[in-house]
């Protein structure tokens, strides 16, 4: 029985801003009473749907964000990390999905950044580069430590990250989907490394969606769901369906009412669209009055697909037909005129102008239509804004309130209001209910259904399976930049099934 190195109890974290601080007055919990522990020399795999809270939990361990509740023990001592450096000092290394390297520096410089060995006031380069070289070699990689990291392949960059972390004599290493961007052979190499790391008594927390990998390297599996701890299973009694069911145990609430009817007029038709040079062609159709769900893991290419359709991202071959007319590469303003809109997953960066008032945001996308003579009619504007506020029951002290002072749910409603004002006929919704509370969610569902009823075609991207299942008439599942499956029959709308396609 190995001894436990790291233990976390009742960890709670509210939805937080870029500084890791809980948003004012939010009730949305990303983590709730999560338990998690790591034993010596084990590979502990952490699984869960998108938004289950895996990354957040790791960020807390890594000291990047503080927990709002609960304790963390290291070798039985209670610890709190004020920053990544401190957790590193305590022997916990974090290898992020998006690599944290200075592309303009060379390998050795990156490895030793912040603790370069010195001779007098100067760097002791010879020593640094030799050290770096032998470290790389020890992992069986012959990378010249003088190479600029920019010139390395993603895999090699990852190796550099690993070496960097190892050079801190870490006992626990967090790997957040390390294989996401690796080729098969590179993955094998990585696994080899993981194996002998473990041999040397180093524990690894491994986040992954690829079940085939789990059995290969994992010792234990812990499942998170909706920010809650569901349970841990030894790899010995690993059972695919069991894990899946643990992951998707979310019950379908009654908040979905489908009152709309699919018409057979095709609104959007995507033919053989490649969202990147190295991805297979995608075919997809959305009909009038139809809600089409687009499921898949984060990074499966759902957002890229949406943005390619909305003309804010280049694509590589294929056609995008809107009502039978090619709309590829059109500027958003032309698309909006035609009635195509895209509700971004990132409402702060692409959805709202936070510094402007609710009213201004609501009318922003309709300026041209509302005031063809460019003269703003303020009375009319106020009217329109108030109507939207009423229609979507947005909670705000006045239509003049600045959006950065609204709650997430209301911000999202404002964005929605903005788009509805343009009287769209094709709605592309990217994570329309991310990070907003339950009531707001159900209202947004109501609105979507309402729109579909009016004959609007809706393509809804979502990571929440219940949402997808509850709302959609048809479901596409994306995986690594391609359509992995299309589910048409309602009886196929089962969380386990969908999830298994995404993994």
């Amino acid at each position, binding site marked *: 029985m190995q001894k436990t190195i790291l233990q976390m109890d009742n960890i709670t974290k509210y939805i937080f801003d870029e500084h890791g601080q809980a948003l004012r007055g939010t009730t949305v919990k990303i983590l709730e009473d999560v338990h998690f522990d790591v034993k010596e020399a084990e590979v502990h795999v952490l699984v869960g749907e998108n938004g289950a809270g895996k990354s957040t939990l790791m960020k807390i361990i890594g000291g990047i964000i503080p927990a709002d509740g609960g304790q963390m023990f290291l070798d039985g001592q209670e610890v709190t990390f004020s920053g990544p450096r401190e957790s590193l000092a305590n022997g916990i290394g974090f290898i992020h999905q998006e690599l944290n390297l200075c592309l303009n520096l060379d390998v050795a410089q990156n490895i030793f950044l912040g603790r370069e060995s010195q001779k007098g006031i100067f760097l002791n380069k010879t020593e640094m580069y030799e050290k770096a070289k032998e470290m790389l070699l020890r992992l069986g990689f012959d990378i010249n430590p003088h190479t600029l990291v920019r010139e390395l392949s993603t895999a090699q960059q990852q190796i550099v990250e690993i070496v960097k972390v190892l050079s801190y004599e870490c006992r626990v290493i967090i790997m957040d989907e390390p294989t996401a961007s690796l080729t098969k052979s590179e993955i094998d190499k990585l696994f080899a490394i993981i194996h002998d790391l473990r041999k040397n008594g180093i524990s690894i927390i491994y986040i992954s969606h690829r079940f085939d990998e789990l059995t290969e390297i994992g010792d234990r599996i812990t499942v998170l769901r909706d920010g809650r701890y569901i349970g841990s299973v030894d790899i010995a009694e690993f059972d695919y369906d069991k894990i899946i069911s643990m992951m998707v145990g979310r019950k379908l609430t009654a908040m979905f009412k489908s009152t709309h009817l699919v018409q057979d007029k095709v609104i959007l038709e995507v033919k053989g669209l490649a969202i990147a040079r190295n991805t297979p062609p995608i075919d997809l159709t959305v009909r009038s009055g139809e809600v089409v769900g687009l499921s898949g893991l984060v990074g499966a290419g759902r957002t890229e697909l949406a943005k390619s359709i*909305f003309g*804010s991202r280049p694509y590589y071959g294929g056609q995008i037909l809107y009502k039978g007319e090619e709309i590829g590469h059109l*500027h*958003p*303003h032309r*698309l*909006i*005129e035609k009635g195509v809109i*895209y509700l*971004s997953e990132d409402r702060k*960066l*692409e*959805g*709202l*102008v*936070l*510094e*402007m008032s609710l009213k*201004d945001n609501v*009318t*922003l*996308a309709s*300026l*041209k239509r509302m*005031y063809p003579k*460019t*003269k*703003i009619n303020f009375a009319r504007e106020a009217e329109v804004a108030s109507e939207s506020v009423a229609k979507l029951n947005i909670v705000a002290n006045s239509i003049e309130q600045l959006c950065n002072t609204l709650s997430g749910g209301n911000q999202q409603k404002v964005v929605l209001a*903005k788009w509805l004002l*343009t009287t769209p006929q094709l709605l592309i919704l990217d994570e329309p209910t991310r990070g907003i509370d339950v009531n707001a969610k159900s209202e947004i569902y109501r609105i979507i259904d309402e729109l579909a009823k009016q004959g609007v075609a809706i393509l809804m991207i979502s990571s929440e399976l219940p949402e997808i299942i509850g709302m959609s008439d048809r479901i596409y599942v994306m995986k690594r930049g391609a359509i992995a499956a299309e589910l048409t029959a309602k009886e196929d709308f089962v969380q386990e099934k969908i999830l298994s396609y995404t993994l």
Partner: protein
Amino acid sequence: MGNTQVLFSQRIRKFVKNNGSVVIFLILALLASLFVKNFFALNNFLTIIKQAAIPVIACLGITLVLMTGGIDLSLGYTLGLCSITVGLFVKTVGLPIWLSIVLTLLVGLLVGLINGTLVQVVKVPAFIVTLGSGYIIFGIAQIVSSGSDVNRLPASFRAIGVTNILGLNTTVLISLVICLIMYYLLHHSTFGRALAAFGFNAKAARMSGIRSEALNILVYMICSFLVAIAAILLTIRVNCAQPTMGGGVYTFEVITGAIIGGASLFGGIGTVIGSVFGVLIIKVLENCINLLNVSYYTYQAFQGIVILLAIIFENVKNRKL
């Protein structure tokens, strides 16, 4: 009753917050009237207005640019170029006045087009583009002038700027009209709204169907266009066209005006009233300096400090927000 008073005081606070420059101006004017001999005189006020009229036009231009989050360091040199251009056309070449003016305005537009394109399309930082283009424009101006300035311009041409209509000369009136147009554009038209949105969050603005690319270039063109107008009027005012008019000092003065007027360096924020009073503040300061017969250099250093305070103040204010 008390209620309404509360509202009133709120309204005042709001006004002060949004029109800081107006308040500063009033205070300044009051102090000057009290302590500076000869300041409080209708004539002096008229002089200040006349002196402010032209920079105001340029200042409104730079205000737009600042609202996009950019800057135009070539402004002063564009002024010089347009000045000599109009002078040459009107007197040396002897083109009809209307034509000379049109051509000069086109020169302005062209400069703006080039600056804007480099900023928007090639994505070169605005301060680099305009720093470089400033030197280029200055050089070109000197070359076309071939060393000699054009003075004693035809009366018919000068009439455009110096004719007096009820005590105010046409320059001031033109400037007023431009202020009104800009006020409409910025505060009552979709252009202003789009500009603000673009300045705050270019990405969201683009995604909301604002033609950010065109807008950004257009703004630089409007700026240089206004500068060209300012150049023509200034040329008329001093009755002499010379490439050395304006220059870096002028650019700085105009930017100062805009920033004192509350325009934000980070884009999005900027008002016509603010910028107008920003310039008036500068001109009142200059006026006092001269009335008190103080060395001009005191003021030059002073001006820099004023703008620093303005920036810090604005920044702190936004922090609180």
